[in-house]
């Protein structure tokens, strides 16, 4: 996890879908992809269906879409998908045997906590995906890990099955704590202020995590999202403002970014609320 990744092949590859299972409101897409090779938790891949990528709502999708690698072992990768638009819809539709374009692994992932410090993993919604592979890696390395996951509603709670021993929070109170996952985080940090935080989820949640960790002086690694055209630093499209001025490219400077590098986690200026 801490070694410098070897780098993806400089071209996309066509791989086969092995399964596409529903997990509540989500889909888990599995693909046979030995070339994904060694990767860091938190890295992602750009995905596109080989057949009929296009022709959806507003004649899209056209570009590939970014997805965290949720797991990779024995040459098989899995992705957790939420259908939010024409690209994710097409991917959710794929069946075993269909072909998928994959470019990855891309970006830089999470860094292990200093020896002896507990990792608190905070996930929201589909953002739990990179925490699954992170939990595997940290547990394999023998570290202490706590998992806190927040979901909007009952339909999304089954997503928690992707990780082990998770404590839940839900907006609608259908499972676990009725409220925000950041409430759970505050409680954990009170009992273990030495912990290190790893978070991925919607911008509002990440900003909550960032603000809490800044206030409490806790190191936090945030896996960000941004609209991406390329995923490998070519288009300069996926930027977020960096503390102190200028911008970071989420695809190559992240997606995992040290919270100290950000003034705040912003929703894209134009993104619908």
């Amino acid at each position, binding site marked *: 996890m801490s070694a410098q990744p*070897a*780098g*993806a*092949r*400089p*071209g*996309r590859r066509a791989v086969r879908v092995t399964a596409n299972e529903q997990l509540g409101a989500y889909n888990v897409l599995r693909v046979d992809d030995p070339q994904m090779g060694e990767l860091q938790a938190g890295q992602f891949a750009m995905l*596109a269906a080989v057949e009929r990528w*296009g022709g959806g709502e*507003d*004649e*899209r*999708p*056209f*570009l*590939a879409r970014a997805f965290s690698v949720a797991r990779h072992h024995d040459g098989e990768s899995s992705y957790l998908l939420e259908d939010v638009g024409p690209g994710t819809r097409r991917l959710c539709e794929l069946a075993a045997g269909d072909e998928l*374009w994959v*470019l990855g692994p*891309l970006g830089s992932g999470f860094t292990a906590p200093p020896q002896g410090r507990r990792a608190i993993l905070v996930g929201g919604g589909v953002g739990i995906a990179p925490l699954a592979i992170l939990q595997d890696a940290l547990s394999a390395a023998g570290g202490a890990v706590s998992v806190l996951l927040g979901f909007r509603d009952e339909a999304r709670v089954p997503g928690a099955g992707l990780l082990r021993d998770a404590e839940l929070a839900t907006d609608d109170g259908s499972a676990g704590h009725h409220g925000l996952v950041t409430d759970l985080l505050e409680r954990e940090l009170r009992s273990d202020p030495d912990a290190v935080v790893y978070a991925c989820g919607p911008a509002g949640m990440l900003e909550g995590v960032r603000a809490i960790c800044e206030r409490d002086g806790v190191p936090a690694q945030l896996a960000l999202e*941004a*609209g*991406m*055209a*390329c995923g*490998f*630093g*070519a*288009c*300069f*499209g*996926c*930027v*977020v*403002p960096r503390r102190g*001025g*200028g*911008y970071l*490219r989420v695809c*190559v400077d992240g997606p995992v970014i040290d919270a100290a590098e950000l003034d705040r986690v912003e929703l*894209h*200026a*134009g*993104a*619908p609320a």
Partner: protein
Amino acid sequence: MSVEFCGLRLAHPIINGSGTFDAIAARGAFGAALDTAFPFAAYVSKTITLEPRAGNPPPRLWESPAGLVNSIGLPNKGLAGYLAEDLPQLGGYLCDPLASADGASHRVPVITNVMGSTGEELRALVEACDDPETIAAIELNVSCPNVRTGLDIGADPAQLETVVAGLRESTGKPLIVKLTPNAADVPACAQAAEAGGADAVSLINTLRAMALAPGRAGARPWLGGGTGGLSGPAIRPVALAQVAAVAARVAIPVVGMGGVQSAAHAREMLDVGATLVAVGTESFRDPAAGVRIAAGLL
């Protein structure tokens, strides 16, 4: 398939469009594999300005039907940063896979794309690029709004000829003028560039475009920069028309681009008179698009 362009010998006719491939970031992402599999026969830098620029606030991207609207805003380190930090790296490892079929490892020539909003700025940029050995040619991006008219500098033939002529003395290197497509008479602009002393013209840059934030009442631009430029297959028929019209009117070589996704599309650009073909948006979908297209032309 090797091709001569302004005195440069290229392994094949496929290069990248400025601002659509960052060789340094790509090496970070793909590692040493890229050194022997660089997808283009020449590498065009993104646009360099005299001073550093952070670029436009996000969002910078909007996916449109068979296209992409971008409002990147030309982020770059500025001339000094480019020369000191980027150029040495670019000179270091770019080599061409197809060229090395003969066993030799060829350097991929670097074309530096520059933009300035005044004559002095442009002169400073071109003069500075004239020196480093690693820079094989200079591309002038004239899709820069004139501060007075708001129109692209390159949209007015007379103005364009003056600008190019004023720079011609500043460099002995090949000077490529990247035309703006947002002009009434693009072939006339190409002729003006030729008359001013350009060694080649390249086109098309993105078409002026915009997008609104979805799902809200009232008009609110999606892009942080307000408006943007349209690229990708959506514009290919427009690009082909402009490239054909320009190639029919100038004697200097033409670099054709706009929506090229396949060898068949590249072949069309060559058929209407382009000497080189640049690939932009398609590289976002597949970073190896350049080499795939070049191989398909064999």
